[in-house]
């Protein structure tokens, strides 16, 4: 019936009932004091007191019941929260591992692309150079062609002048022939003149010799000129061929140049494209790295969530203690804890349960609880967390204190004690956490301070082989120079 009440409403009811009871008992006391003689009044007073006490008891029972309901819901929620946060931790880890792997792949891809990009860049540069060279070649071929044309013309001129020379040579040849005949005539005339013509005959002979030599020279020259002419004809043919070849080179280099230009633009475009891909990949790289980081963060947030759910559990225990008192705590907490312990399948050993029980049984007794300062030190960090609970405990305490001040003192001392031994349970629970997630951050491990009994448990061993592996480092085994 009180299920829907909030915490403050319950508190308000408790205060009201206490006030009501106090008021009635006060009134009855006063009446009793004034009218002690009348038995009916005494009876009435007694009845009033009994009724009021009954009402108070009824109300407080109702309140307790509702608080218990709330507490059981709280317990369920905190348990759900615990398992949920465990799941979150595992998923977060998986996500983190996955994204780390992906990030590695993408980083390699990125570097590969960079290498390709730099190679394409070089290709572009080379193509550009080749393009320039091809253009130069084309220019040279053009020049060669023009020069070849000039040479062809010169050759033609040479041929013409050679023909002219051969004509002149023929004239010289004719002159030599005629001179020869003239010298013969002169010799005949000299013989007819007798002694007087003797000297002239000698001259005529010399002239004839000269004419013959001239004729010979003209003949030789004519032969040379003729071969010259045929040579220059050949030259013309060859020059024509060269000119044609040069034209071919010209055309080809033009094509090469065009192709190179295309290659150059293509590789430039490729370079731009690959740079774009590269940018995208490096963005992906960043995002993936970020994802890995975020996943890691959410994994550790989930771990934090776990500790909060543990805190919640502890608050619930405190409240249970306040509502039901020490004896019932014993009944209530032990089963829940052992149930929890059972849930964490790994802890099956009877030892552990036995260990927990005496500690919790000892909740109300001071002597048993404060045995070792060592344990206290270990519990220190958890104690800090219990500080958070304290104010809440104080709040509830205040309410109760109104009702029974003397009890409040007792309760206070009990809660103080309760904080310690319960905190003791924490390492055990934390331990179970470690088992579930073998990869718990190593930085946290020392804080947990595993108890000696728990250490040799078979389940905890799981992460251990890795540790032993780590001690056997490959660099420690054999030096490389055996190869």
């Amino acid at each position, binding site marked *: 019936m009180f299920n829907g009440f909030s915490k403050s409403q319950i508190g308000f009811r408790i205060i009201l009932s206490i006030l009501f009871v106090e008021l009635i008992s006060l009134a009855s006391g006063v009446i009793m004091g004034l009218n002690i003689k009348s038995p009916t009044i005494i009876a009435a007073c007694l009845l009033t007191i009994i009724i009021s006490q009954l009402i108070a008891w009824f109300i407080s029972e109702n309140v307790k019941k509702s608080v218990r309901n709330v507490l059981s819901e709280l317990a369920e929620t905190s348990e759900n929260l615990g398992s949920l946060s465990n799941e979150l931790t595992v998923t977060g880890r998986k996500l983190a591992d996955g994204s780390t792997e992906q990030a590695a792949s993408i980083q*390699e891809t990125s570097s590969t692309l960079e290498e390709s990009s730099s190679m394409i860049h070089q290709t572009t540069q080379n193509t550009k150079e080749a393009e320039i060279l091809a253009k130069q070649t084309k220019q040279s071929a053009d020049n060669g062609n023009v020069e070849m044309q000039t040479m062809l013309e010169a050759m033609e001129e040479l041929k013409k002048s050679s023909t002219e020379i051969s004509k002149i040579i023929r004239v010289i040849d004719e002159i030599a022939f005629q001179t020869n005949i003239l010298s013969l005539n002169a010799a005949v005339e000299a013989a007819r003149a007798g002694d007087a013509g003797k000297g002239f005959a000698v001259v005529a002979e010399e002239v004839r010799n000269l004419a013959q030599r001239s004729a010979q020279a003209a003949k030789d020259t004519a032969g040379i000129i003729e071969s010259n002419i045929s040579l220059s004809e050949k030259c013309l043919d060859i020059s024509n061929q060269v000119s044609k070849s040069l034209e071919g080179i010209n055309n080809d280099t033009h094509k090469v140049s065009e192709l190179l230009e295309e290659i150059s633009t293509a590789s430039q475009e490729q370079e731009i494209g690959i740079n774009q891909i590269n940018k995208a990949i490096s963005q992906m790289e960043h995002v993936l790295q970020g994802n890995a980081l975020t996943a890691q963060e959410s994994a550790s947030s989930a771990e934090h969530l776990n500790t909060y759910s543990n805190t919640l559990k502890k608050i619930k225990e405190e409240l249970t203690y306040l509502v039901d008192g020490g004896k019932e705590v014993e009944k209530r907490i032990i089963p829940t804890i052992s149930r929890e312990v059972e849930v964490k399948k790994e802890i099956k050993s009877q030892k552990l349960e036995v260990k927990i029980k005496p500690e919790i049984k000892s909740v109300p007794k001071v002597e048993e609880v404060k045995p070792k300062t060592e344990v206290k030190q270990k519990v220190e960090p958890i104690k800090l967390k219990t500080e958070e609970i304290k104010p809440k405990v104080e709040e509830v305490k205040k309410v109760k204190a109104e009702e029974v001040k003397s009890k409040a003192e007792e309760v206070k001392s009990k809660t103080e004690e309760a904080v310690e031994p319960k905190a003791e349970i924490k390492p055990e629970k934390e331990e179970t956490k470690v088992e579930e997630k073998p990869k718990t951050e190593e*930085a946290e491990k020392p804080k947990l301070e595993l108890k000696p009994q728990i250490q040799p448990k078979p389940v905890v061993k799981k992460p251990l082989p890795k540790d032993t592996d780590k001690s056997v480092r490959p*660099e420690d085994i054999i030096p490389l120079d055996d190869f």
Partner: protein
Amino acid sequence: MPIITIEKNYLDLFSEYLYKNMGIYIEDSKKNLLAQKLAKLMQEAGIENAGEYYHFIVSPPISERQKELKNKFIDTITVHKTNFFRENNHFEFIQRNISEIIETSQSAKFTNELRIWSSACSTGEEAYTLAMLCKEILPANVRPKILATDISPDSIRKAMEGIYKFGPEDNITNYYINKYFTKNGTQWAISDEIKNCVTFRLFNLVEPFPFKNPFDIIFCRNVMIYFDKIVQEKLVGNFYNVLGKKGFLFIGHSESLIQIKHQFTYHEPTVYRKN
């Protein structure tokens, strides 16, 4: 959770450290990524101050924790992308030319071994692929002797364990899986027969090479993409020196030696040969 920021001067210091000690060249455009990685590492190590972390990494390791942190650092900074039968045409090339390789190998002639070096083996897939290939194609009288090295202790550890999960990116056929692996839950363990062919060692490629005998084949794929031209040239020179006559160097498919000076003869794309 506090957000860890790494000041630029420390980023530069880390980059310099990586270049000097591992040859890894980090361009300015990649420094952001380095910062992210460092932040993650520092968060894991529980160190918030970049300076403190830098000194932790740079100084010679004295404690176990420092050793561990340094290993983690190397493991995170370097990239461990690898797969079985990755860039398969190299393995096909070896298969095609195996008789010539054996013919020209000095070690095959004198010690009946084919000496192969997987110089950046990461988690061992490349080396094991080579070992499986050798088992398939080598004549009975030649044994494969494979050295696999990497800079990351964590990777070497994983390689030595030899336990893998096959994903869609693994090019390995069922034939090899069935023949050389045993299933272990969702994972596959490589057989001892293959494991025994491979020796795993920790080795930093920028350090001097200590090898006594020449190799017949060197794999150095997708490593030089992280180095600059100076380190690449030096490394390729060192590879040339430790290769035997007519030995082969295989590089990654995006890589080429055209931009650096070297003595190798180009054989086919990404395959180079010593004269």
